[in-house]
């Protein structure tokens, strides 16, 4: 169950055109989650990541340090695909993130909570929220943050298709319940020799342009009734879609 506040944030996110114009949405999300700062970093291939949202200087610095060192709750959340909740940074055993402590001790950050953005082995980025005071998030806040991370994942992975005429892809969160969508993603990644994130984009683009549900397209791919070509089309029909080269 998400809060009314987060439902409003998600609505604003839908209206918004891109990450750049989202400062207000980010600030609102931080307020709803009851935190002092919020960042969103997106993976840009390999080990690199780019800071896309940042509502607060301390939060931004903390994220920068994590990205530079490649260690901390954020990188751990990205690696495992599971949230990392640190209600009191001072209580973390030093050996857990040996370099982080020294670099962040001067920052006004006492608690950090990181939520992975991704689908299985596809890692899109991390949503991080920080507080200047120690203490856990409530169950409701954790749930809200997870839903926000999920919505941001969908945006990051669907933005290419959305760019065509400004609408979001027709597939919903529910389609990701189907094993067959993930199986098709794996198959297309091998067929086209692209990362899994790209493979999912191609599948979504194809579903979008053909007006069929993603699950149907996926079933056809898994049954080998459909094979996408390098432009994301089946057998060369239709118009090629622009697909980002980013991972």
């Amino acid at each position: 169950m998400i809060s009314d506040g987060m439902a409003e944030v998600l609505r604003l996110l839908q209206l918004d055109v891109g990450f750049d114009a989202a400062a207000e949405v980010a600030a609102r999300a931080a307020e709803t989650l009851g935190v002092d700062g919020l960042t969103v970093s997106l993976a840009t291939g390999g080990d690199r990541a780019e800071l896309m949202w940042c509502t607060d200087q301390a939060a931004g610095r903390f994220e920068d340090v994590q990205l530079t060192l490649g260690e901390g709750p954020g990188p751990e959340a990205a690696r495992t695909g599971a949230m990392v909740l640190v209600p009191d940074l001072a209580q973390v055993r030093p050996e857990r993130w040996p370099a982080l402590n020294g670099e962040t001790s001067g920052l006004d950050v006492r608690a950090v909570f990181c939520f992975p953005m991704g689908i299985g082995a596809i890692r899109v980025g991390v949503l991080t929220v920080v507080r200047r005071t120690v203490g856990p998030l409530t169950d409701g806040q954790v749930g809200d943050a997870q839903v926000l991370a999920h919505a941001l994942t969908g945006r990051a992975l669907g933005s290419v298709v959305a760019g065509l005429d400004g609408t979001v892809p027709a597939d919903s969160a529910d389609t990701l319940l189907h094993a067959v969508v993930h199986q098709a993603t794996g198959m297309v990644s091998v067929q086209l020799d692209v990362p899994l994130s790209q493979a999912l984009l191609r599948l979504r683009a194809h579903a979008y342009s053909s007006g069929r549900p993603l699950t149907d397209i996926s079933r056809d791919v898994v049954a080998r009734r459909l094979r996408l070509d390098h432009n994301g089309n089946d057998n060369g029909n239709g118009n090629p879609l622009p697909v980002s080269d980013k991972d």
Partner: protein
Amino acid sequence: MAREQEITKVFVEVADSLIDDFDLIDFLQQLSERCVELLDVAACGVLLADEHDVLQVLAASDEDTRLLELFALQHDQGPCVDCYRSGLPRTSINLEDPNAQQAWPQFAPAARQSGFVSTNAIPMRLRRKVIGALGLFQTSGRPLSDADATLAQALADVATIAILQQRTLAHSETERSQLQYALTSRIVLEQVKGILAERWQVTTDEAFVAFRAYARAHHHQLSHLARLIADGAFDTEQIPRPPQHR
């Protein structure tokens, strides 16, 4: 094997899981297989709620994609959803009953088409909170006995304990983080089935069988090996290929 011995075996496996570094998906899959051996049921699935309160399949007694899809259909309708929402078991539901067909217009006919006659849903509880459900399908119309219902609940509790005590995460903080790790692992496994199926030109089900045989023979955790393969950090040529059909 006598039923008592079978049950003992399950609890030995559970105890092992507490001691050893174990793989959650593999464990739950074996637990699902045990359910089929111990209870008068033909198929079993472990469903866990995600952050949207939507049930996701973590493991099933048979990795056949059709069975997985049948469990996936229960994300918004079916006895498992009802059980998850109410926290109460739903046993011996006749899938041919017009009421069932009406209540679950997609799920009930799909289950019938797969050859199932009745179904049961057992809640997976963590203290007062329900985190998922165990789904049990039967090919006979016999109602689940009281003894079976009790044992099914015990097995559902074991599944819950297993999910929450996995130490795959180097430093686990919270139960929710454990649940999320389990759900992510499941998706990685499906992506890897697709990768291997395409590399080997076999079906995803055949790819999984070969993958699991290799993982078990070499004492790899399924989820860990799947993550390595998805990241391109494991040479899949090491895994014996299943025979091709094409």
